[in-house]
C-alpha cells in the first residue's frame, strides 16, 4: 500500500468516520454547552468579584485575592480531580459535567477578576472625582463611568483568556464527561483506527478557529489603548 493510501486509511477512513460521527456530534454539543455556561458564569462572577473588590473592604479583599491567586496558580486538572474524587467522600456528589462546569467557572472568574480589576485601576482618578462631584454615588460611578471605560480596555486580554480556559473543556474526558475528546477516544479504541481522533481534532478546529480569529480581530480593533 502506498504511504499516502495508508495515511488516508489511518486518519480519514470513511466507514469509521461515518459510524462514529453521530457520537462525536453529540460530544460537540456537550462541549458547546459547557463552554457557554463557563463563559457566562465565569465572566459574570469575575466582574462581580472585581466590583466587590473596589469597595476596598479589607477582609473581603484578602479573601478575593487568595481565591484568585489560588485558582491562577493551581492546574485546573488538579481542581477537577479534587472535586470529582474528593467531594463524594464528604457527602457532596457532583456529576462530571457539574464538576467541569464549576471548576472552569471558578478558574475563568479568577482570571477575569484580575483583568477587570487591572482595568478598573487603570481608569484615571480624575474620572472618579469628576463623577462623584456631579452627585453620582459610588456604585453609579462604577457602573456608568468607570466600568464602560475599563471593559473596553480589557477586552483583548479577556478574550484570549476566555478562549484558553474554554479549551480546557477537553479535560472533562478525564472524569468521563461525554464531550468531543471523550467520544473520540472511545470511538478510537472501539474501532482500532485513528480516524475518530482526527474528526475530534477537526471538531475542535471548527469550534475554536473562528474564536481565535475573532480574538485576533478584537485585538486589532481595540489596539488604540496599547500605547
Amino acid at each position: 500500500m502506498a504511504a499516502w493510501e495508508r495515511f488516508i486509511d489511518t486518519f480519514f477512513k470513511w466507514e469509521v468516520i461515518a459510524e462514529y460521527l453521530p457520537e462525536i456530534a453529540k460530544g460537540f454539543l456537550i462541549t458547546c454547552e459547557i463552554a457557554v455556561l463557563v463563559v457566562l458564569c465565569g465572566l459574570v462572577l469575575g466582574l462581580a468579584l472585581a466590583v466587590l473588590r473596589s469597595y476596598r473592604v479589607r477582609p473581603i479583599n484578602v479573601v478575593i485575592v487568595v481565591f484568585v491567586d489560588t485558582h491562577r496558580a493551581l492546574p485546573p486538572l488538579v481542581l477537577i480531580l479534587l472535586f470529582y474524587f474528593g467531594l463524594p467522600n464528604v457527602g457532596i456528589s457532583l456529576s462530571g459535567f457539574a464538576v467541569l462546569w464549576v471548576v472552569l467557572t471558578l478558574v475563568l472568574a479568577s482570571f477575569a477578576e484580575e483583568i477587570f480589576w487591572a482595568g478598573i485601576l487603570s481608569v484615571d482618578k480624575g474620572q472618579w472625582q469628576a463623577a462623584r462631584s456631579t452627585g453620582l454615588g459610588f456604585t453609579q460611578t462604577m457602573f456608568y463611568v468607570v466600568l464602560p471605560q475599563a471593559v473596553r480596555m480589557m477586552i483583548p486580554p479577556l478574550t484570549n483568556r476566555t478562549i484558553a480556559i474554554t479549551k480546557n473543556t477537553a479535560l472533562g474526558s478525564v472524569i468521563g464527561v461525554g464531550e468531543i475528546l471523550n467520544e473520540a477516544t472511545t470511538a478510537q479504541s472501539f474501532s482500532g483506527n485513528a480516524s475518530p481522533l482526527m474528526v475530534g481534532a477537526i471538531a475542535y478546529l471548527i469550534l475554536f478557529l473562528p474564536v481565535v480569529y475573532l480574538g485576533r480581530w478584537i485585538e486589532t480593533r481595540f489596539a488604540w489603548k496599547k500605547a
Partner: protein
Amino acid sequence: MEAIAEQFFNLEIMVLAWPTIWRGLLLTLLLCSVVIVLGLSGGLMVALLCTSRNPLVRIPVIIVVDIFRAIPPLVLLIFVYSGLPFAGIQLSPFTAVCVAFFLNNSAYYGEIYRAGIESIGTGQTEAARSTGLSKLQTMTYVIIPQAVRNVLPDLLSNTIEVVKLTSIASVVAFQELLYSAEMIRSITYNASPIVMAGAIYLAMLWPVVRLLSRLEHRIDG
C-alpha cells in the same frame, strides 16, 4: 468537619505518599525545564518566520500557528500519544508530551514574541542597518532584546500556564506530580495526596503569580 480533615488532610496518608510524590515532583521539574526551553526557542523561531516579509514563508506558518492555538493541548497530546502509533510512530509518554508541548507552546510563545517584535518601531531596524549591522545582527542585538523586555510579563504569564499544563501529562501515564498523587488516591480512596500535589503547585507558582500581578498592575496603572 472531621470528615473533611480525614478526606483531604489525612497526615498518615500524606506521609505514606511523600516518597512517590517527591519522585513525581522531580519528574515535573524535569519536564518543565525541557518544555519551557523547547517552547521559548520554538516560539522565537515561529515569531521570526511570522514577521518574515516573504508571504510564502509567513502565511503557512501563521496558519499552522492558528491551528495549534485552536486545538486544546490535551487533544494534541492524545493525538500524538495514541493516534500516531496507528501510523507506525510510537513515542514514549515523555517524548509524546515534549512533542505536543513543543507544538502548542511554540504557537503561544511565538505569538507573544511577535507582539514584542511588532512593538519595536521600524526606525530601530533602519538605524541599526544603516550603521552596518546585518539583518541577523539587527535582530539579535537590537530588536529581540527590546522586544523581550516589552513582553516580559506575557512571557512570564505563559510560562506559568506551561508549568500548570504539564499536569495533563498524567493523562498519558507520564509519572509526574499529579499522576503520582492520583495513583495513591486511587489506592487509598483518599483525596489527601491530590491536596498535597495542589499544595506543591501552589508553593511553586504562587510567588510567580503575585509577582506577575504586581507587574501587570504597574504597567496598566
